[in-house]
């Protein structure tokens, strides 16, 4: 276990270093934050001064090592826009994003899994068809279109819910619904096919042959097995949630990490972009490791091994 965890951690660290390096190189090679932040009319001397102040005039590798040195001493730099410590800038946004993603995640699970299981158990029934059409549609509608439609219906027409901003918990409902729906649809699809696959297995027949009532067969034997492939999807869904947050936060003017990223990218606020990406990458790596561990717990065959065929 320990060795496994260590090697997993090592790979995680390698991939995080890769992420950071990649982002660093992409960011530095591709455009000069000075012009962006200083604006259209800034005189060249101002831009030069800015570059110098932020060390952008040094060779790339010098900047790179300086950056890494700083990261290891816990110093992720300052925002070029407002001079604040980027950790503070990012952390300030994290609660907002979590306020969307965590409930959305629960919506995903609470709606998607039961819907998928139900559809699988009633395969080819009318309800199965409906669930699947909903699920495929939910996957096929771009989230911003869904978001705008929800706003038109629930805010503008009905006036039930606020359309943007972050004043109360009611503001969170539409964004959560938007993010929840897409994920739930995806999860329902995967749960259904996982469940169908499990229901076709011999051990389900064995359980029936024992004389177990069908409901017990489903609850005791099928669900846990169906959870195995579903967990891998949940791991991927986390990435989808983060990406979804980028779009949804823009539509709903929700000041979360996603919007911070968009704004910082637009402003070439390198340190902030880097910190956000680093944070997302670490979250994803951690989430993937949690999924790995969960996987081991749910599937005794997988204990100590990485998932064989994570799709």
């Amino acid at each position, binding site marked *: 276990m320990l060795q496994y965890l260590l090697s997993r951690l090592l790979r995680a660290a390698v991939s995080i270093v890769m992420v950071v390096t990649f982002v660093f190189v992409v960011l530095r090679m591709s455009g000069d934050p000075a*012009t962006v932040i200083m604006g259209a009319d*800034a005189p060249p001397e101002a831009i030069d001064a800015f570059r110098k102040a932020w060390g952008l005039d040094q060779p790339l590798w010098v900047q790179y090592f300086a950056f890494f040195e700083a990261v290891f001493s816990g110093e992720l730099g300052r925002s070029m826009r407002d001079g604040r410590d980027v950790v503070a800038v990012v952390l300030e946004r994290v609660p907002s994003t979590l306020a969307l993603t965590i409930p959305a995640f629960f919506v995903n699970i609470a709606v998607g899994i039961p819907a998928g299981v139900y559809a699988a158990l009633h395969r080819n029934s009318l309800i199965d068809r409906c669930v699947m059409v909903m699920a495929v549609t939910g996957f096929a509608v771009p989230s911003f279109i869904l978001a705008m439609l929800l706003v038109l219906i629930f805010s503008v027409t009905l006036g039930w819910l606020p359309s*943007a901003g972050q004043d109360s918990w009611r503001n969170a409902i539409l964004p959560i619904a938007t993010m929840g729906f897409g994920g739930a649809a995806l999860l329902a699809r995967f749960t259904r096919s996982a469940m169908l696959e499990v229901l076709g297995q011999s051990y389900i027949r064995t359980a029936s042959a024992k004389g177990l009532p069908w409901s017990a067969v489903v609850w005791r034997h099928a669900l846990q097995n169906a959870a195995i492939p579903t967990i891998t999807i949940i791991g991927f869904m986390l990435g989808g949630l983060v990406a979804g947050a980028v779009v949804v936060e*823009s*539509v709903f003017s929700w*000041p979360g990490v996603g919007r911070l990223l968009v704004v910082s990218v637009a402003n070439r606020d390198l340190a902030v972009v880097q910190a956000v990406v680093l944070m997302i990458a670490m979250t994803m790596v951690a989430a993937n490791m949690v999924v790995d561990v969960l996987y081991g717990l749910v599937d005794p065959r997988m204990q100590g091994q990485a998932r064989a065929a994570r799709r």
Partner: protein
Amino acid sequence: MPRFASAQSTERPAVTVAVQRISNSNTLEMLTEQSNVGTRIYTSYAETLIGNNWIGDMSLQPQLATSWKRVDDQTVDVDLREGVKFHNGDVMTAEDVAFSYGPDRMWGGGTVEVPENVKVVARQALPAFERIEVLGPHKIRLHNSSIDPVLEGRLSGSIGMIVSKRAFMEAKSWMDWARRPITTGPYAITEYKPDSVLTLSAFDDHWEGRPPLRQVRFVETPETASRINLLRSGGADFACDIPPDQIATVEADKRFKVVGGPINNTRYTVFNKSHPVLANPLVRQALTHSVDRNLIVESLWSGRTEVPRGLQWSFYGDFYIADHENPAYDPDKARALLRKAGYNGEPIPYRVLNDYYTAQTATAQINTENWRAVGLNIKLQMVENWGQISEGGPETRGIHDWSAAASLPDPYVQMSGSWGPLGSPWKSNQWRNEEFGKLSQELGSSTDKTRRIAVWRRMLQIIEIEDPAYVVLHRNASFTAKRADIKWTPAQSFVMDFRRHNWSA
């Protein structure tokens, strides 16, 4: 201690304003926030010595200065208003004014480390500023190192907001200060969440008396549709930056009204003379003759803005050349010019930012179509930021969009600053014209008004007709949607004025 909005003033309304951005730089100090965006917010919490009649004729007005007078070409004496309080309760003195224009805030070299870009911005805004001399608790004298016909005007610029010396020195660093400046405006900053919300509360100790609103909240809502929806769903009282096409949509609901119109900002499209094709003035002339301004104004702006006579403003007074004509929309002439220039369909890049200006992308597409129609091979390139516009060698840079504003009734600052030898196009070798350069210098140093007017006329002729550096499109317009029951007048600028004289509901 200051008295903020308290129980007895709860009957005053609070308003929410949906804006596209609150501050580009995430700071509230105008030395770092140099964008149009910042213009919208700062007049509510900060004041300058000399104010501007934004919703009127843009004339200069007393604000923190009660009066001023020229001592000589290089010196101005200013009397300061008495009894002005900062948001921290301190009373404003000449010390504070001198400090606001001093090295710690602007120039560097004092006790505080000033960001490089701040120094540059300050130097650009006040090119010949020397120092401020404190003549008394409420009297100062400003010394300039050279002649500046528009020195007073410069004092009304946003960077001249007067700040509390004590508060400044208490801040941990310059940038810390910039995020939470202590100033004298009618509303005080109570909360600022970057990229999200700026809350201002009534500052009841303001020298004009109690402000009309209990609270002003600027909510950042980048999506146009979201801003309109916020207004329509009651989440906001104002929605800024409404594209002209949406006016009808908003006004379809009788509860809302869209106000605003042309502002003191002109949209124009500029050429890079060092591009091999554009080096030929005939090609540039052809470009200017195939821009259909009126069509743009009619279609994209529903006629709600106007086409100025070149890059000048009617408030220039005597300097307004009333008979100056823009190059006419004349495709045949453009074709003839192209033939004469021997143009053979060589591609010309046109770099455009995605709606940095209102309807920019649409305008660019219209222009491209018109240019295409006369046989110009324009390659529309959408770019992300200003840096990418100026990227690459001369042959990769062709045409791009720009805008110009003027706040002083004299063409010198605006035109020579932008296009003269000190301007960035000149420096970056984008457009140079020897004659124009000489005239530009003369316009800045001459005090002979008639001569200056003649010079100015000639300059316009050169830069817009003979050796075009740009083609003027139209005045920019700013539209703000608001609750119909609110009586509030928009400014001829991005400024939003929430002072007593501009509010009743």
